[in-house]
């Protein structure tokens, strides 16, 4: 079974040109989210403060990645690559923090 890589249709996505209207919408969303996160930092939410801040940051990141960086219109490989990067980052941060946070649990 021959499986020719890079079928011609896939190249069409190279030419999927994202319109300026979309860019404008996204940048407005990003600025609104920035204002939101600043406002949220003035509100006492206890343990939710960092969660909200990081959630908003993650949302902003997704908007930049999907639209400005064209990942929404990209191949599965590109999406997989982004995912792999995020995953490895989370492993580094998560497993290292797991050590630090469990130290206080003491011996068994």
């Amino acid at each position: 079974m021959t499986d020719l890589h890079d079928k011609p249709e896939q190249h069409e996505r190279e030419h999927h040109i994202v319109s300026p209207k979309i860019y404008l919408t996204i940048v407005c969303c990003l600025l609104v989210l920035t204002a939101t996160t600043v406002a949220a930092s003035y509100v006492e939410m206890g343990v939710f403060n960092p969660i909200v801040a990081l959630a908003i940051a993650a949302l902003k990141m997704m908007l930049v990645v999907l639209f400005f960086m064209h990942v929404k219109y990209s191949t599965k490989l590109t999406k997989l690559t982004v995912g792999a990067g995020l995953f490895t980052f989370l492993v580094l941060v998560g497993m290292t923090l797991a050590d630090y946070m469990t130290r206080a649990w003491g011996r068994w």
Partner: protein
Amino acid sequence: MSDTIVVLPDQATARIPKMNFLSKEKGLLSWLLTGDHKRIAILYLISISFFFFIGGSLAGLIRLELLTPQSDLMATDTYNKVFSMHGIIMVFFFLVPSVPATIGNFLMPMMVGAKDLALPKINLLSWYLYMAAGILAIYTMISGGVDTGWTFTTPLSTHYVNTHVITTGLAVFIAGFSSIFTGLNFIVTIHKMRCPGMTWFRLPLFVWSNYAASILMVLGTPVLAIALVLIVLERTVGIGVFDPTKGGDPLLFQHLFWFYSHPAVYIMILPGMGVISEVVSTFSRKRVFGYTAVAFSSVAIAVFGFFVWAHHMFIMGISNYAALVFSLLTMLVAVPSAIKIFNWAFTLYKGSITFETPMLYAFGFMGLFTIGGMTGVFLGSTGTDIHLTETYFIVAHFHFVMVGGMLMAFLSGLHFWWPKMTGRMYPEKISQLAAVVTFIGFNLTFFPQFILGTLGMPRRYASYPPEFQILNVFSTAGATVLGVGYLLPVLYLTWSLKYGAIAGNNPWQATGLEWQVQSPPLTENFPEIPIMDHEAYDYEWLERQNVSEVASVG
């Protein structure tokens, strides 16, 4: 059944092909500004051999010092510098680039059916970064070197030593980028430049292994980079990140350092395993047993390799719970490696085995890597690790997998593809002798170190209790034999460049696209991009090719 599979052209009439990548352009600049992956591979081969012998000489000094229980050959500070530089040079300047940058660079594009790697200029940049780093490391060594061990452990390296930590850290930082660019190039090439018909599961397993190693290079090395940057900042500015008096945690460095350095050992071994797949298949005349399992286990090793780094830190102060989790994951990461060993063994079963030099090294690999790997399990288990860590048991463990494993795989691959790279055969008898000498020397050097470790001799010590001397003497004796075993290939391989038999395209009757073109290959590898229409390791396809070929020239 003949005792060799070698088929050479008629030596009376055979010639090295006039047009090949070596003869295409002449002059130093054509080498220093080349984009040809094959020339870059040769540049790397010469460079890493040079660094190997520097690292090897340092090893010789270590073993000389350890002949006697007292620290009498050199001051203990000097000894610390010798083993540190030995580790740094061997790990970063030999083992990490060894197979990928030489054999991988040379062959991988041909194996996927491409004319070059995806980014030839980045490939050349990678070599220049390597050389810059190497020269900086040599300069640092001459100016006094570092004595922190290759692991730069904090707070020793940041607060307690006065040696050249910053320049050495910088050298390793630069070498890291060399590695990143090689890995990046490989991943892009394998994804985007396979020839028509070359599906993922028709790729040689050497390509799969290098792919997995490249993922580790790209994702792991940057963390080493930031760890080194932080050490430099700590030493120069005194930011306090690893300084307990300012609230920092020295263990953070170790987390960042080992997050790279554990995957680094897989970066080192995976390409070697790729070589073994090719060699075992060719010299058993059989397709690799369980191709899919071997391919997926390469990737599994890469993925799982990211989850186990803290097993280097069991006694350093991580929490018990973290130790438990990392220990469990360490047991899991051993499984894919074991799968490969089993698959190679089943490839041998009912194969037509011959014992040319690459196969001898491959046998050595299979035995010694298995031993090294199994002792890794003892170390991965927290209870036993408490007693064995920081002793000679660890030293023996990693030398078994790295020298008995990786270095043997490198030599196996070097001999296997030497005819392809140079157009000439190496002399078989002396090379088989060298392989046996290496094997004997290796076991004599490193097996006693397992015993020394269990008896309690600590690593990185210049002096030791007198009752350990006899084993140390065996080890040093073995090291001498080993040195001879490594020197011989330098001599006869150089000799073969001029006097070796003309190899022809496919002296081993191997499958794989690289064996279907001339030796040495053309600069563009293939006159036209091939179409892959058969599975990997398809010896029946090869039979059909030979049946229909015309044997005479002109």
